[in-house]
């Protein structure tokens, strides 16, 4: 089953970025499931993180987090301070400077479990991922973060959205949140042929105040820099999207979702959840632990 998720993620021939719709929705589980599927198929890969990751416990809530195990032959991009001393990695290159030192591109000669972290800026995120791809000549998996995914806009990267019971108390609510997020992330790129020659370009965020003003006006095409500039949620965005054509300069490509039924209030029905999220997002959806697909 996870092989199917891997196939969808790699179909674009581009780096795969896993982002979560909220905290503790199984993002790292999905990330590791993709890597495990690649391991099973003997696919060499590179990996990095947008932001710090791989710590034994979550930096915010202290909950245990899955460690990042790097198999031999994989290439990892991580800050200098996180480079483990044993077993030694093969240092290939140095990249951008981050708060934890320069980014280091390294190959694992022996299996190693370690903390990985990400580059400091949007530009560095892009540069790191591109360099990683060039170095490993195979798949690239990025443990992403929804608030830093703007750095990837305009690229060919395949985005997998992890969602789950931690983002809503019911199956319906989790699915609604996932659908809303995916709808925004999938905002189409502006095309003058299709959308007309003189759109309203919005320099900053498309927020509620601006949305109200647009709803009061004539239908038109509105262009934001990238989907993360849409600071609208739920029905307001849906209303706006029906009234005006919302487009972006640099699009993102969401290819699949994953679900985790666990949440602070207990567990949701895994089968119902995976189906509901698939319906709400229109994307292939997987529960990588239960082996479910919808």
């Amino acid at each position: 089953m996870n092989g199917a998720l891997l196939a969808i993620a790699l179909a674009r021939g581009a780096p795969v970025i896993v982002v979560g719709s909220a905290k503790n929705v199984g993002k790292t589980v999905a990330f590791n499931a993709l890597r495990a599927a690649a391991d099973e198929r003997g696919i060499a890969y590179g990996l990095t993180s947008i932001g710090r990751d791989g710590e034994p416990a979550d930096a915010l809530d202290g909950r245990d987090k899955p460690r990042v195990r790097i198999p031999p032959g994989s290439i990892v991009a991580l800050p200098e301070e996180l480079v483990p001393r044993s077993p030694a990695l093969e240092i290939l290159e140095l990249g951008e400077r981050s708060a934890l030192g320069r980014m280091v591109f390294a190959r694992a000669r022996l299996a190693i479990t370690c903390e990985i972290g990400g580059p400091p800026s949007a530009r560095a995120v892009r540069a790191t991922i591109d360099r990683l791809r060039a170095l490993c000549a195979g798949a690239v998996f990025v443990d992403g973060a929804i608030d830093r995914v703007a750095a990837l806009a305009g690229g060919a990267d395949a985005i997998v959205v992890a969602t789950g019971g931690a983002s809503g108390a019911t199956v319906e609510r989790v699915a609604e949140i996932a659908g809303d997020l995916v709808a925004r992330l999938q905002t189409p790129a502006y095309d003058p042929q299709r959308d007309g020659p003189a759109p309203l370009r919005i320099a900053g965020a498309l927020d509620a105040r601006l949305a109200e003003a647009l709803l009061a006006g004539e239908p038109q095409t509105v262009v934001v820099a990238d989907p993360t500039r849409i600071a609208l949620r739920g029905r307001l965005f849906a209303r706006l999207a029906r009234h005006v054509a919302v487009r972006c300069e640099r699009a993102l490509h969401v290819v699949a979702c994953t679900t985790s039924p666990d949440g602070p209030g207990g567990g949701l029905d895994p089968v119902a959840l995976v189906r509901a999220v698939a319906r709400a997002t229109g994307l292939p959806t997987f529960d990588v632990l239960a082996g479910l697909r919808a």
Partner: protein
Amino acid sequence: MIADAFTAERIGAAWLRAALTPVSDFGRRAEDAATAAGPLDAASARERCAAIVRLAAALDPDGAGRARVALRTVPDPLAIVSRARAGDPLGDVDFYELGRFADALDAVAHAWVQAGGAADELPVASAVGTVLAPGRSGAGFYLADAFDPVLADARTTMAEADTRVERERTRLAEAIAEELGFVPAAEEFVIVREQHAGPLPHGVRVVRETPAYRLCTLERDMPALLAETERDGERRLLAAEEERVRRELADAIAREREAIVAAVARLGELDCALARVALVHRFGGCVPTFADDAFVLTEATFAPLAEALAGEGRTYTPLSIDLRGTAVLTGPNMGGKSAALALCGFVALCVAAGVPPPARAVTLPPIRRVAWIGGGDVDRVRLLSAFAAEVVRARDALAAPEFPALVLVDEYARTTGPREGRALLIALVEALAARAHTSAFVATHFDGVAEAARVAHLWVSGVAPAALDGIAAGDLSDALGALASAMDYRIVPAGPDVAAGSDAIALARILGLPAALVARASVIYER
């Protein structure tokens, strides 16, 4: 070289500083050290200029450019070497950087030799490359087995221990596979409650539970625990071996400290020298000759102006100036008088910095101070009018110690009444001429200053009146181009019959002043 900010700006100091900016940190350190050491004495300046001229002649300009590019990429190893020297542990990233340093030195050497440089002038730190060679199959670095057989053994032993652990894990997994319905493949595995509602098989330990899943691991029996304990021990041994090899490498690097420091210093010298060579390749350069009583330039170029003109498709005319003691320079407006003054200051600046002055030949005193008086604007810092500012600058120049100085006076007292202004200027020229060790070059439009002060009178050849009349007023850029083409910028001794005047009215016409106004001015002038 002492020059206040106003003077420095006038004589192109910022331009020269930018042109001499090294491309590497080593070069910047060398340049900073040279600046801190103060101006070169005459012998050192001559020696330095001679070395640069020789180097410029030996090096191919494109190749020298490539050598500078190679220099730019050399990482600085000193911090790492200092840490190694202090006994601090080095990491693999440090060894990678040292490897890059060794590679970059090779690249600089290659570019240098390709450019025509002598191999014996190159920095050498080949031992660094030799020390790190076992870990470097390409540009990267790995703490490879080849560094030490004991390290290789530790890795082999750990791999064997890993295999034993994996064998034990497989044994345990297969033992519960039938009951579970699958073979747990990973260290941790998930059992979905829906699929396994009942009790878990013996040998499965729950790590974390959720309403939907149980995250499990295999319960280790004694053989498995022993294998893991042994593997963990081997891991620690491997870690210790890796640290030991790193320590030995760091010690070996520390022993090369002197060679590395010397190589880095040499890189800095090369960087600074190549910046000077680049200037010589662009503008030419000569070895200056020192003489106390002459400031003589032959076909010298004020490089900042030459560069600016080239940017506009225009050509700079190199100037020859024979300045002995104090001289007055007159000539038409826009004839390059101020630029001639600036050229003298620029040449003095170059020589003090060990830069071959851009000229065919230069003879000058060992100038230690340059002062520019006049030609300025209101001094907003000290709230002085233009006149007050230049008077204060003249006062300061005269009060300065009489060590070898170059005083450049640009249209002093032009902002006051012409009679009093001329008197002030003549008095200033007399005072400058009376000073020991002072070369002074005084540009003015006042008549008879040189004769009154009994100093040399030089003259910008200018434009023949007929040529001026032939230039049409119109587009400013075209007019300036035509004027520049017609202008003879050469500076020659003014004969007794030298024409007075500044061609100001004719130039005003060319620059587009209304024709009626120009005609009226001519009438008034002829009266």
